[in-house]
């Protein structure tokens, strides 16, 4: 065991650090907006173009598609170093992290050359259109149709939980092209111009009041067949490639509420004494310290595996599964410690700028985004532990004979 870089890794890290120090934006030059602000998006595009031009974007991609042909370890080093700066990288995670690799696997040469470098430079923003109101955990139960019309397809239906749809130039969309086939068999993947007629984006207001996601409605939106990714009715394989990357991306950044809590609990006083002098508070804090350490060290093991050329498997689900509930419980506990003031969500008045009140409200979203707790446990049970799948009553049944979504009784 050794946490130190190899000489080559150390040199790479040194270069990254030097470049970032010279080029990364200072925190005070950035707008206050989060993922929902136009200004932040503009800053993000500028940043991405700058790193692309300097040769730091998409490090593991082949050079011909805008990358640097490096290995995962350089990507890890870049991620570790860039995390120390206030840059805006989140906007492109789905495009570069999920859509790009899928296009690389399933796109034609022409598609790859025309799409990927523009994606890498954030000239084009991409989004991902899989989930539907009636198809969440059961993604393959989707109903959005693509019907052949000469050399084109007409898309009709509704997608949901689409991040960045309001900014996106393109989206990869999973559609049903043959509803008489069993549900995983009749799906086809396309990429679609998000600015074209027949595509309407509406923001979704979340339970916490935020609007990070969208619904996207398709009404006779036309897609030429050359924008198909992979085989006709072979879309499920493409989707799995995208979803695997989604899980990995999500596994690596799972928020768990700990840094904020640890910062708070060392300052908090209860009845005039430091909170940590109370043995219940102290030991509960220790419980979370240990859990957070486990998550941090598990992450280090995963990165270490990547550094050694491995690919993390379904165990990457763990960070998000554990982190989401931890975030919920730790926020609720913090609010309880604040006594009556726990209800006060006023940024000026509430302790710690109301961040625990906010976390209490967004934590339920963490428990479903990118796969519910229940889906995550299924993935671990089946893909890591090799346990048998659930009984599948829809197996082999034509899709149009399966009950799906909300059915009033």
């Amino acid at each position, binding site marked *: 065991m050794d946490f130190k870089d190899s000489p080559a890794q150390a040199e790479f890290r040194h270069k990254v650090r030097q470049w970032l120090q010279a080029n990364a934006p200072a925190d005070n030059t950035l707008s206050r907006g989060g993922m929902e602000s136009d200004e932040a998006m503009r800053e993000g595009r500028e940043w991405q173009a700058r790193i692309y031009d300097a040769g730091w974007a998409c490090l593991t991609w082949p050079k011909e598609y805008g990358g640097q042909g490096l290995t995962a370890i350089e990507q890890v080093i870049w991620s570790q170093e860039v995390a120390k700066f206030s840059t805006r990288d989140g906007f492109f995670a789905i495009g570069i992290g999920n859509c790009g690799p899928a296009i690389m696997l399933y796109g034609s040469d022409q598609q790859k050359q025309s799409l990927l470098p523009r994606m890498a430079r954030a000239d084009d923003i991409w989004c991902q259109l899989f989930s539907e109101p009636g198809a969440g955990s059961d993604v393959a139960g989707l109903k959005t149709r693509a019907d052949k019309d000469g050399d084109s397809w007409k898309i009709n239906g509704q997608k949901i939980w689409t991040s960045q749809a309001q900014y996106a130039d393109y989206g990869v969309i999973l559609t049903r092209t043959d509803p008489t086939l069993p549900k995983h068999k009749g799906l086809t993947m396309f990429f679609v111009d998000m600015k074209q007629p027949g595509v309407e984006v509406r923001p979704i207001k979340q339970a916490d009041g935020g609007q990070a996601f969208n619904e996207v409605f398709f009404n006779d939106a036309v897609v030429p067949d050359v924008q198909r990714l992979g085989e006709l009715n072979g879309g499920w394989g493409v989707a799995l490639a995208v979803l695997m990357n989604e899980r990995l991306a999500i596994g690596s950044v799972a928020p768990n509420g700990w840094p904020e809590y640890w910062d708070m609990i060392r300052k908090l006083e209860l009845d005039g004494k430091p909170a940590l002098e109370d043995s219940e508070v102290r030991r509960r804090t220790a419980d979370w310290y240990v859990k957070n350490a486990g998550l941090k060290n598990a992450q280090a093991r995963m990165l270490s595996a990547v550094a050694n050329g491995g690919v993390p498997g379904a165990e990457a689900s763990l960070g998000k599964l554990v982190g989401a509930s931890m975030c919920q419980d730790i926020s609720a506990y913090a609010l309880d410690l604040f006594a009556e*003031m726990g*209800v*006060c*969500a006023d940024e000026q008045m509430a302790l710690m700028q109301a961040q625990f009140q906010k976390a209490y409200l967004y934590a339920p979203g963490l428990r479903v985004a990118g796969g519910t707790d229940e889906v995550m446990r299924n993935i671990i049970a089946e893909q890591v532990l090799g346990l048998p799948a659930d009984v599948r009553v829809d197996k082999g049944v034509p899709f149009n004979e*399966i009950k*799906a979504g909300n059915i009033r009784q």
Partner: protein
Amino acid sequence: MNFEFSEEQKLVQQQARQFLTEQSPLSVVREVLERDASQVRIHEDVWQGIVKLGWPGVAIDEQYGGLGMGYLELCVLAEELGRSLAPTPFSSTVYLAAEALLLAGTEAQKERWLPAIATGGLVAGLAFVEATNGIAGQALNMRWQDGGLQGRKTPVFDAEMAQLLVVSAINEAGEPGFYLLETDQPSVRCESLTSIDPTRSIAAVEFSKAAADPMRQDLDFAATMGVIQDRAAVLFAFEQLGGAQACLEMATDYTRQRYAFGRPIASFQALKHKMADMFVAIELARSNAYYGAWSLSTGSDDLTEAACVARLSASDAYYQCSKENMQAHGGMGYTWELDCHLYYRRAQHLASVLGRQAYWKDRLIAEVA
């Protein structure tokens, strides 16, 4: 031997449910939720309807203008109010202020104010908490001197509408006591605060030599404060219970009707067992709340034990049920459009409204050990 509400009480409950279903459906709650910062977080029509039905006076003696029915009737009303999320100042006025008046008011004060609460639609509240001190906090900074109150209380629930506040303060001799204050004076300044549950009203209230009446001087302050808290804990437990039960019903309804993988999602054990656990939490909380109701209604001397137990299990059950109801609704449960978050917000509101869990746990063990 009977540990259930009577037929008459169940009838009161049924009527309450019908009224609230009609007059305070979730669309009304949502209307208050969506109000902008300048508007009061209370639904006036619902509140007036409740006043007309005489609910605020249900447990107030007839001699003070109430219906004199008793606490058991108030408990079943509380359960329905909790289930409906009705945005009214009922709890501050009835569970807290009216009880504080009954316990700490002089005869003259009771005669003057209790009838106004019972039937007159008077909104009242408690101003006990001073920000981080919490109800459990020892140090009071609010001063009573020269016939006026000086200091700041945060948060005060329903302060924006309250005409009358019971305020805790220390006098010039350093002794704590209760004071009765009418808010309609310029030396009382009420600043609305954003709540985690915007369907309820909270504020910071600043008193600048505000005129107020001392309440009974012959009381043990801490003991009286304890009784006020204990009674309120039982009544709030019923609100929490009603909310938790509504969450379980939402979850079972939704998961029976939502299909994935060709089956209703309620047929997956992960969700079935989650809902079984919600049921278990509610049953335990309900049983403890009933014990609290019995203790409250009979004036039993185990009220503190019963109140602690009722409050602790109801807070836990509501947290569990409101968060797992959201989870059972999947992504849709996390939308503003669905109602899951209304309960999740209210669960936190009710968990905080009487101070920290630790306070109630310590109080319980001090009582029974």
